[in-house]
Every structure is written in structure tokens, then in C-alpha cells.
């Protein structure tokens, strides 16, 4: 809190504030610097994409913000308070859907309501009515109406991923952390889910941190793109995405869009090339 004030850049209160964070793994011998001197501020309601080659520390940043990983050095503030001390509601989704195989889709989606405070108190009573409708409504938005009673293994990978997104959103999170959630899907499903994701974001305006290695995905969805490099992992470029919303897939063929993704791509490739020349 004090540090955030001391740097005192703006009266605005960022939802996420990483200050000169270092993360190292391993001991003396095989030390990996996953993140070096990384600072990142994300304002409320922003949709930020982290892009970069694999191993550059994208997931590490996500885990730091989620509070499941502690930094070796530096500070992380979420809604102005040091991590862990806040009441921010977080939703998470990953590349694999991680649904619970013994619950049907609807119960999988309702799982966070069983655990997150304002919802959990009425869970036993409202499970049958209010919460069930809530889950069904959300499932309908991602194109899964009528699948609530099915079990995960009866659904395709793309459908499971939709359900996983619903589980991340059911408890109205103010912060959404997505780690390559569309990474394992085919192109068409992916584009369809981009649109759904955008609509959900426009509707509720949560703060989103999306990890991806797909520049087109980043440019389509995000309001800001942070490009990262590997070894040591750090953010090397931070650019805003100006295109008006709601964006359609046609936007991705417009010259501005193409030149943005081209520029970011070249940036990443250039850094990698330099890396490879150094032993």
C-alpha cells in the first residue's frame, strides 16, 4: 500500500500492480530466472494479453497474481493490497478444461458457488433453483444449453473448454486469469470462443489477464498487449489496441490489425534471434 503510494504516479488504483518482481526457480546450480525485474500495472476493467514464446514466464505472472506463487523479490498488489490480504474474486481457466469427471457439466460450473463466500452460504438451499438457473443461463451464453446434465467425457474438447470458462465466470469474478484457454482448440472453435469471450467481457467488464502465444488472439480480444521475452523473462513491449468494439473476425484482416500483429511478431522474432547468437 505504502509503496504503491510512494511511487504515486496516478490517483487511479490499479487492480494489479507488480513492482520489480523477480522469480527464480531451482538452487545455486541450475538456477532459472523465470522473471526478472518485471513491473506491470493493470487498471480496473482492462483486458490485458500477455504474449511471448513458451517458457518466457507468462504462466508465472499469472500464478503470482493468483497468489499461488510467491515472488523471490518484489511486491505484488492486488486491488491496492499486498497479495493474499484482499477480497478480490478471481476466476481461472487453463489450456486443459480440468473439469471434475464425477460431476455433470452443470455441477462442475456451479462448483465455485459452493466455495466462494457470498454464494456458499445459500448453496444447499439455492442449489436446486437459483444457482442452477444461473449456471444454465451462463452455459447458454457459450452455446451449451441442454448439456448441463451431460458428463465431461461426453463432450468434445471445445465444449469442455466452454464449460471451463463458465466455471471461471459463474461467481462474477472481478479478476479473470486465463492461461492459454483456447490453445488446444481448432481454428474455428477458437474464433467462435473469442467472440463469446468478448461479449462476456463487454457485459460484465471484469479485469482480464489473458496468457496466449497467438498474436491474432491477443489483438482481437485485448485492450492492451504486453510482449514478453524469455531467459530472463521480462516484458519488452506494452502497446494498447485501439480497435473499436465489438470486434469481429473481419477486423483481423484490416491493415491496421495486420500491421499491429506483424510489428509484435517481428519484435519477438528479433529478440529471439539476438538470444540465439549469444551462447
Amino acid at each position, binding site marked *: 500500500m505504502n509503496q504503491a503510494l510512494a511511487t504515486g504516479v496516478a490517483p487511479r488504483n490499479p487492480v494489479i500492480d507488480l513492482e520489480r518482481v523477480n522469480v527464480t526457480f531451482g538452487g545455486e546450480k541450475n538456477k532459472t530466472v523465470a522473471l526478472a525485474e518485471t513491473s506491470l500495472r493493470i487498471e480496473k476493467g482492462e483486458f490485458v494479453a500477455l504474449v511471448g514464446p513458451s517458457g518466457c514466464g507468462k504462466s508465472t505472472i499469472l500464478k503470482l497474481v493468483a497468489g499461488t506463487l510467491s515472488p523471490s523479490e518484489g511486491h505484488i498488489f492486488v486491488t491496492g493490497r499486498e497479495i493474499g490480504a484482499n477480497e478480490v474474486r*478471481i476466476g481461472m481457466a487453463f489450456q486443459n478444461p*480440468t473439469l*471434475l469427471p*464425477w460431476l455433470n457439466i452443470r455441477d462442475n460450473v456451479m462448483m465455485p458457488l*459452493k*466455495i466462494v463466500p457470498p454464494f456458499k452460504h445459500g448453496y444447499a438451499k439455492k442449489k436446486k433453483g437459483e444457482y442452477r438457473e444461473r449456471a444454465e443461463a451462463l452455459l447458454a451464453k457459450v452455446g451449451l444449453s441442454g448439456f448441463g446434465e451431460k*458428463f465431461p*467425457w461426453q463432450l468434445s474438447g471445445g465444449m469442455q473448454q466452454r464449460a471451463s470458462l463458465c466455471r471461471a465466470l459463474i*461467481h462474477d469474478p472481478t479478476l479473470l*486469469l486465463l492461461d492459454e484457454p483456447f490453445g488446444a482448440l481448432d481454428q474455428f472453435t477458437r474464433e467462435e470462443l473469442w467472440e463469446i469471450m468478448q461479449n462476456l467481457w463487454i457485459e460484465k467488464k471484469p479485469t482480464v489477464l489473458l496468457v496466449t502465444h497467438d498474436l491474432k488472439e491477443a489483438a482481437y480480444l485485448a485492450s492492451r498487449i504486453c510482449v514478453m521475452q524469455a531467459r530472463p523473462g521480462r516484458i519488452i513491449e506494452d502497446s494498447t489496441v485501439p480497435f473499436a468494439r465489438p470486434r469481429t473476425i473481419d477486423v483481423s484482416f484490416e491493415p491496421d490489425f495486420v500491421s499491429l500483429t506483424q510489428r509484435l511478431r517481428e519484435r519477438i522474432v528479433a529478440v529471439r534471434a539476438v538470444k540465439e547468437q549469444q551462447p
Partner: protein
Amino acid sequence: MKPDTRRRVLSACCILGSFVAWEAICLAFGVSDMVLPRPTQAVYTLVSQFPAIWPHAFQTIYTTLVGLGLGILIGVLLGMLIGSSRLAYDVAYPMLVGFSSIPKVAIVPILVLWFGAGTVPAILTAMVMCVFPIVVNVATGLASTEPELQDVMRTLKATKLEILWNIGLPRTMPYFFASLKVAATLAFVGTVIAETVASNRGIGNLMMIASSSFDVPLVFAGLFILAGLGVTLYIVFSAIEARVTGWAVRSDDFVSNG
């Protein structure tokens, strides 16, 4: 459905056939029932002496079930502890491995010394026999929870108990039932060992007495009862398993059942 029925009929025929072959070989070579009684002789003994055998069988069932129950209770608790705590794993695992390497016959005299001959040492032996596979499987099941799922639960600020209840335990169920089927048969072994060494009741004791009086058909009748009990328990647990953990086999008929 049809190939399924055929498979069952075929396997039943094969099992029956092996008994018929046993019978035939004994008849053909004129094997004395002092050496190897025919299955029909064993069954005849079983039926004709049923009133005398029944109390022993009941004693064995009772002892085994109580021992198995205790084994499940202790095994699940210990498995949960070992599966969720690194320290408990490091401490308890070597001890468990060491303990389970001891032949259980060796501990019966100690148990008799402590509790006297009779039911108690038999129950404890059954329990000791069946605890190890349960502990190992429960611990493995708990440890196999995906790290990402645990991350989800932690960001939702779930307590350890909530994680255990909502994810850990359901995930462990298939492992638990797999171990239960082994544990049930091991519990029978434990009971019979203890009854043979130090008891005046139970199938183990019955077989001891029968063999010392060279009543070999009665010994085999005892074996048949034990095998029958073992199979029954196995079937019961398999049925429960299919109900509870049908999701793990992902079959279509699980969905139509429930």
C-alpha cells in the same frame, strides 16, 4: 448385449469345467480322499456337516468384517494424512513398508500375548493384513489431483477441508475401491492365519482340527467356504464400486444408471 452374455456363459462353463476335470482325474487315477478329495466329496461334507460348520463360518465372517472395517477406517485416515502432508509421507511410508514386510504369522503370538487367544487377535491380524493396500491407494489417489485444479481451488480461497471434500476424496474413490477388493481377500487370509494359530473357533481352527484328524474332505470343505466368502465379498465391493465410481470407467451404461 449378446456377446456379453456369451462371454459370461463361456467363463462360467470354463470354471465349472475345471471342477469337472478335477473330479474326473481323481476318479480316473483312483486318488485317495486322504490325499485329494473330489469336489463332490468336499461339497457332500459341507452339506452333511453344515450345522457343525456354520458357527465356525459365522465366526470367520464376523472376524473378517470387523477386521476389514477397522482396516478401512485406519487405512483411510492414514492414507488421507500421508496423501496430504509431505512430512507424514516421509515418516509413515518407510514404517509402513517395513511393517508390511513382516510375515503376519509372526505377530499373532504377540497379539495373543497381549489380548489372549480368541477373537481379538484374529480381528487385529485381519486389520493389519488389509491396512497397507488401503493406505497406499488412498494416499496415491489424493496425491494425483491435478495441480491446476488445486490452483483453481486456492484462488477461490477454499479451505484444506473443502479441497479434500470436493476434489481429493471423490478423486480417490476409484483407488480406494481398487484397494478394497484386495484388502477384503487379505482380511480373510489374516483371520484364518490367526484362527489357525490361536483360536478355538473359526474356519481356520476347523481346518486345523480336521487335518490333525486326517479328515481331508472337511479341510477342503473349509477351503471351499473361504473361497466362497472371498468371492462374495469381492462381488459386493465390485457392485458398490460400479455405483460409486462409474465415472472413472466412463461407460455409457453408468450414465443410464445414474
